[in-house]
């Protein structure tokens, strides 16, 4: 049975990978870049599937880790763009020397290490403390939501260190190579799709291992798992940290794709929107989350350009409709089609 389920999930992942490989052939560079932007959110959505769909923990603060990753990457690019001077927003706020915590971001190696380590570490420490107190459910959602708000307020307030409400913008090269031209965009897209593919395969593997079984058991009856001798707080914190890592990686790719990062990508609205990507794709499907992120994202670009009035109606109805009528999302729909029921 397990092999059968894993096989089905893996086929979904393969189908999505084929789709991602085909996109560059049918899309012009502008649309491809947009898709790349939404693939960055797909990382977050995969994390939400692990954490919410399988672990039963809903965080409304994934923007925190997305933002951390994005800001770290953007700061590296910005320091390169403005070298040997300080970034422009710092001199506008008469900051004269680079603050200590930005120092590591002169080197790409350190930047990547910190993107991969810092957000999961923070996430683990915070959430282990919370889960150990057996706080969960809506409380956890509200606390993470208020943390996202806190970080936004902090970023906007500390203009000299973070670029304030404008964010960090205006960088065009990485290690001297251009990142805004069409061919560069294609390379970044392919790199992103490859990393995402690997992520999906690893996540499906994880979910169908013993660890995945324990995770589902925690979601469905945490007490029993605890009484069986598992430290459920550790396991939930680990999944939360994993989701944070994925968000952070997504944020880093976002900075590369979009060429800027701003508090809007961190805040309350953005953080809740990230949940709908996973919900539309199907909260139990890794591959579905990627499709959901791409689909909702592209619809957003299309609708908010063509009918700006309609977009919020649409998004609002999407939240309601998915929750009320298709809790398994698109993946559940596809599954029903596949089994002919």
């Amino acid at each position: 049975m397990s092999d059968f389920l894993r096989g089905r999930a893996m086929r979904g992942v393969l189908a999505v990978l084929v789709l991602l490989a085909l996109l560059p052939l049918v899309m012009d560079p502008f649309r491809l870049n947009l898709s790349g932007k939404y693939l960055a959110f797909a990382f977050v959505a995969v994390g939400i599937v692990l954490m919410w769909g399988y672990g039963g923990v809903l965080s409304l603060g994934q923007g925190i880790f997305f933002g951390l990753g994005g800001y770290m990457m953007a700061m590296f690019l910005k320091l390169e763009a403005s070298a040997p001077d300080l970034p422009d927003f710092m001199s506008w706020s008469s900051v004269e020397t680079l603050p200590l915590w930005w120092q590591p971001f002169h080197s790409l190696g350190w930047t990547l290490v910190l993107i991969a380590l810092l957000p999961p570490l923070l996430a683990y420490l915070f959430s282990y403390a919370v889960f150990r107190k057996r706080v969960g459910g809506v409380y956890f959602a509200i606390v993470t939501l208020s943390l996202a708000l806190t970080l936004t307020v902090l970023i906007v307030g500390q203009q000299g260190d973070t670029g304030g409400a404008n964010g960090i913008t205006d960088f065009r090269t990485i290690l001297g190579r251009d990142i805004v031209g069409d061919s560069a965009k294609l390379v970044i897209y392919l790199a992103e799709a490859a990393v995402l593919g690997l992520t999906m395969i690893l996540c499906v593997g994880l979910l169908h291992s013993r660890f995945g079984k324990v995770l589902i058991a925690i979601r469905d009856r945490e007490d029993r798992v605890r009484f069986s001798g598992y430290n459920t707080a550790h396991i939930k914190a680990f999944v939360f940290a994993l989701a944070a890592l994925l968000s952070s990686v997504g944020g880093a790719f976002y900075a590369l794709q979009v060429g800027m990062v701003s508090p809007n990508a961190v805040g309350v609205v953005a953080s809740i929107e990230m949940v709908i990507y996973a919900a539309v794709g199907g909260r139990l499907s890794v591959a579905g989350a990627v499709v959901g992120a791409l689909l909702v994202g592209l619809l957003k670009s299309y609708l908010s350009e063509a009918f700006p009035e309609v977009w919020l109606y649409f998004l609002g109805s999407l939240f309601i409709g998915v929750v009320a009528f298709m809790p398994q999302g698109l993946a559940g729909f596809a599954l029903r089609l596949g089994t002919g029921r």
Partner: protein
Amino acid sequence: MNLEIAAMQVFNGVSLFTVLLLMSIGLAIVFGLMGVINMAHGELMALGAYVTYLTAAAFSRFAPGWMDAYLFVAIALAFAATSAFGWLLERGFVRHFYNRPLDTLLATWGLSLILQQVYRSVFGPQEVSVPLPLWLSGAWEPVAGIQLPLNRIFIIGLTAVVAVGVYVLLTSTRWGLRVRAVTQNRPMSAAVGIDTSRVDALTFALGAGLAGIAGCVFTMIGSTNPGTGQLYIVDSFIVVVFGGVQSLVGTALSGLAIAQSQTTLEYLMSGSMARVTILLLVILVLYFRPNGLFARKTRS
């Protein structure tokens, strides 16, 4: 800091607290009773503010001579409109999600997005404000050097009346008894013959109506735009969670504590740092008292 400034700070803190308190009481009783997180609560408040705006506009058009009294009509209308909307919302929407709190959260968020766009389409994206009745402009000067604006004194009084009214309603009426019974033990209350779904609907309507009054109060101190509700929603949740759900007094005290420390810290440091400090302090306190500061000890 001299005494006059200190007094003014406390006063400003209290008037900031009024809107927050009215919002939080509504959220707290709904959350305590049904375990529902209503993310559209802020938009209900905005609805109350827009009703006030419409009432003021109607008075200035049709009955300019009665302009001084429009506020009382507006308070009643704001309460009536939002609680009616709340009742419909509970019966037609929220009721279907009771066993899935996280899904309710997402669905009501969707609703809040739709309502925001409705407000934007109907009232436009710009801010609207209401004229202050003549008898509320000006300030009261109890001692030289301290000026307390009359409109703020009014909203503090109004909030006090409403809060005491809700307290009395919940503690000394038959209906309040039923609400408390259902909050404490739903299956048992149903077993002794309480119509729990009716209690749910009416309580939700009351919570919504309180948000409507909050919106009405809000027009006295600020201008309304389609996003106004969203500014308050996270803060109100923090007040509720900090105070501990199910405890009305706890909600009031935690709202007061948060609003007071916000205004005091704003005096000492920048506004954004004050907010960050408060949010982090609240989260820290919640770590040590996960059920809120004023929660009673239970075995549940």
